[in-house]
């Protein structure tokens, strides 16, 4: 079975317990304005351009069948609207200036990479995590990988937005040991404005998940001007306190490292000038959360 991924990252320490391998799926059903992996939003392969790496060899201009690449005056130009994502230019760009992000891959190939670290998973209590993007946008592909891992005795986890019909979520549960999900805001109007979807189905799905016996890790990325207040975090934490099977609640500081990716894809970055969340504020928000939830972590 094939699917589209952006990358496989080994020795992941922040996507679940222990030493893990994370498979990043391409495609997402939400449009979070702060997404630090914007290359995972669209499911089809996309061309990234990093002009600082360009060595001006001109091979991309020569090979592109659609005239996407050009030099006008002294300026390097990329006509993105003409690009069909064939990847020919990226295949001849050895400097890494042009990258086709998103490749079709078979589950066998994914498993081959995953199996390289099986001894580390067992030793550390780690395993594999399917992330993205949104894993359940390619639910059959994700299911297959998780199933194959379970057959090998590997612990499985997914990072999902749970913003889909419950049937999609329940489909994946038999092969998932751990679910990591975000609660970005309790205020639905805020949620719709910044993510493109309502939080109503999300919250219902979380409630249902908590009634199953599957461990949950709940996270909130702290986003400036969106949810970085004690009021909002307090509301989220209070909601979490009503759930069962929550291993811990984690606050993640705003991650500005996605900025170059937005530029590379010619995408607007609403949070272009935002900085990583102040440590003092993080501590304050964590303190607020601890009023409702016993086990609160704060990523530094």
């Amino acid at each position, binding site marked *: 079975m094939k699917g589209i991924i952006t990358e496989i990252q080994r020795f992941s320490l922040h996507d679940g317990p*222990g030493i893990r391998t994370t498979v990043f799926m391409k495609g997402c059903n939400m449009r979070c304005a702060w997404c630090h992996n914007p290359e995972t939003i669209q499911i089809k392969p996309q061309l990234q351009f990093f002009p600082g790496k360009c060595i001006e060899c001109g091979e991309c201009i020569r090979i592109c069948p659609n005239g996407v690449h050009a030099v006008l005056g002294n300026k390097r130009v990329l006509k993105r609207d003409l690009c069909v994502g064939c990847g020919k230019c990226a295949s001849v760009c050895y400097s890494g200036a042009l990258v086709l992000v998103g490749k079709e891959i078979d589950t066998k190939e994914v498993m081959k990479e995953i199996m390289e670290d099986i001894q580390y998973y067992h030793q*550390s*209590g780690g395993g594999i995590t399917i992330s993205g993007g949104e894993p359940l946008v390619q639910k059959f592909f994700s299911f297959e990988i998780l199933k194959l891992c379970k057959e090998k005795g590997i612990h499985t986890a997914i990072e999902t937005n749970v913003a889909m019909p419950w049937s999609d979520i329940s489909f994946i549960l038999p092969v998932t040991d751990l679910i990591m999900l975000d609660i970005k805001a309790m205020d639905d109007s805020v949620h719709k404005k910044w993510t493109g979807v309502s939080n109503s189905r999300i919250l219902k799905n979380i409630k249902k998940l908590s009634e199953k016996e599957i461990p949950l890790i709940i996270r909130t990325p702290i986003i400036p001007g969106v949810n970085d207040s004690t009021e909002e975090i307090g509301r989220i934490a209070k909601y979490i306190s009503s759930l069962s099977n929550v291993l811990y609640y984690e606050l993640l500081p705003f991650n500005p490292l996605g900025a170059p990716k937005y530029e590379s894809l010619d995408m607007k970055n609403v949070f272009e000038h935002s900085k990583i969340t102040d440590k003092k504020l993080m501590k304050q928000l964590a303190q607020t959360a601890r009023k409702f939830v016993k086990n609160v972590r704060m990523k530094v």
Partner: protein
Amino acid sequence: MKYIKRINLLVEAKNRQTKQKLDRLGARDEDDYGCVVPPEDFKFELPIKDENGSFSGAYAWGKNFRHLMECHPVYVDPNDALAGRWMFMLSRMRQGYRLELSNFAFDYSHLKPNQHKYDITCGIGKDAHFAPDYRIGLELGWGGLLDKVKRSLESFAKDPIASELLEAEIDAIEGVQNWILRTAETAHAMASEKNEPELRENLEQIAKINKYLVNGVPETFREACQWIAWFNMASRTYNRDGAGGQLDELLRPYYERDKAKGMINDCDVEFYIACLLLNDPHYYQLGGPDRDGNDMTSPLSFIILEAASKLKVSCNLTIRVHKKMDKRLFRRGVEILLKDKLGYPRFSGDKALVEGFCKNGYSEGLARERIATGCNWMSLPGMEYTLNDVVKINIAKVFEVAFYENMKSMATLKNLQELFARHFEIAIETVAEGMDFHLEHQYLNEPELMLNLLSYGPIEKGLDMSHGGAKYYNMALDCAGLATVADSFAALEQRVEKEKILSWQEVEKHLSDDFSGRGGERVRRMLAASEKYGQGNSLGDNWARWLNKIFVEKVALRTTPKGRKMIPGWFSWADSVRFGKNVGATPNGRKAAKPISHGANPCPGFRKDNALTAMSNAIASIQPGYGNSAPWQLELDIGSTQHPNAVDNIIALLQTHFDIGGTLVNINIVDAATIIRAHEKPEDYPYLIVRVTGFSAYFTSLSKDFRQLVVDRIIES
């Protein structure tokens, strides 16, 4: 708490001395040593030297060393539990001495053409680099050692070579005794002038202990530490030996006896150990199995770790990871490593080391006695002559020779492979001949007067360790440049043979002009973007395994012409900089004169995620497997150490690495931002300690090239 103030003062003194060394001696691309600068007005003349300003042979070494010991300035710090600091290296007082090429009184010019051709560090004339057994000295004391030598001398009265050696040993011992006695007298004089009761009492103790140790056998824990310190200082002064030993087990009997008598408590013990570690950062091993496989971890193992952690100066402690180890020692070691971020302890993997050494025909019990005592060294204390870490082949140079020879005919990958194997064989034969030459002549060049004393055989047989005195001869041959060569083969296979997007002639042209010609940079990037060693099941991995296979076949499965065993390892020390300067551009996209790859590590940037598990797998897969190490130089980024489960994750990573065949892990934890700032202004970071390769040093004491080596590795990680 009792000793906190004194430890802080001693560390301050160490920091001052470190700065003094930097100011007076400039950058030194080697270990941080416990030595201090001599007084400004100190003058020393070698009593015996030849017309070239050098000296050789047992007689000259004995006399020169004795004279140096008798003149050596005395050092006593009232806050210290132990007396003494060393200040000189006799071996470097020979005119013409160079770190990479020792003085040698005999002509081996017949070997030089090939040594030069393949950029071989031949090791001829190199000294030390094997481990003593401190138990010999602790059981006999200096007086007992002297008696032993004198008795042996009587039995070799008619043997001029043995007599010369043993008389020189007498000079060495009596020189050391002189130094100790003068130190005791100085401490006594200082005591009479000291007002503070605690420090006066301490000085009187120092005086008493050292007066006793001139001849006596150490009986107490503190006396044992002081005895070890004296041997270390004398041995360093003689020829920089820093091998160390299984410290916890050496000192355990004294610890248990003194505690049972109520003479010391753990606080005292920790302080004495701290003083020993401050005296010199010798390479000590903790934990590990005894001959029967039972764990040797004791309370002292933990105290030594805690003492090092309190000091926070450069230190070289290795924890042996084995099946029956006390996991608490492993955990505490990793906790200290992550907390202090000073590159220690490091960790050795007993499973692969013991199994590997047994393949040479040795028993498991003997193999377990072998300890990690240097950057990458493995040595049987007092029994084995090894020349660890000083014999190297730059295989990037061998590759270069093969590549250009390949271009003279019908260039193919198969042809290149065969040529490489052939030239590698010649390089190894040259090394083997050099080892025999060294073993035949070194005793006449530079006998191991200090290490002989703590070895089984030299005094008894009247033969230097390098010349028949040792029980075992396992000559260590390391190669450097594994990833550079593996990736170069892979790039040629991929781009020239498989994809056919480059011709052999194009590659040759671009290598010859260092990628500076038209289209050169693109070709360089293309080659650099080829499959690499470390990616996992890549062309580079296949080539790395092939390189290891032929290395093992050509080294471990044969002997030198005179029948000496050789043991292979992958280790460049910090010579990756020097070796790189001797090699032009290589097909992995490396530019001319840039450093070659480091040790057994893949090249930086080998994977987009730089996954440590991938690196671990790769390095475990190319272990030569005959008992010597191919260390993993592990740069841990700060982020991974701040994770709530960092300790467990790192333990899992290291344990798995050893389970799958890894042998030794040297670790750094410095974040990229700090190291970049420190590189720009090293004077702003006078106490930043890094593990350069196997050795640890103050960052500020390194040359710009060496600092760059460390910076590049950390940034790429």
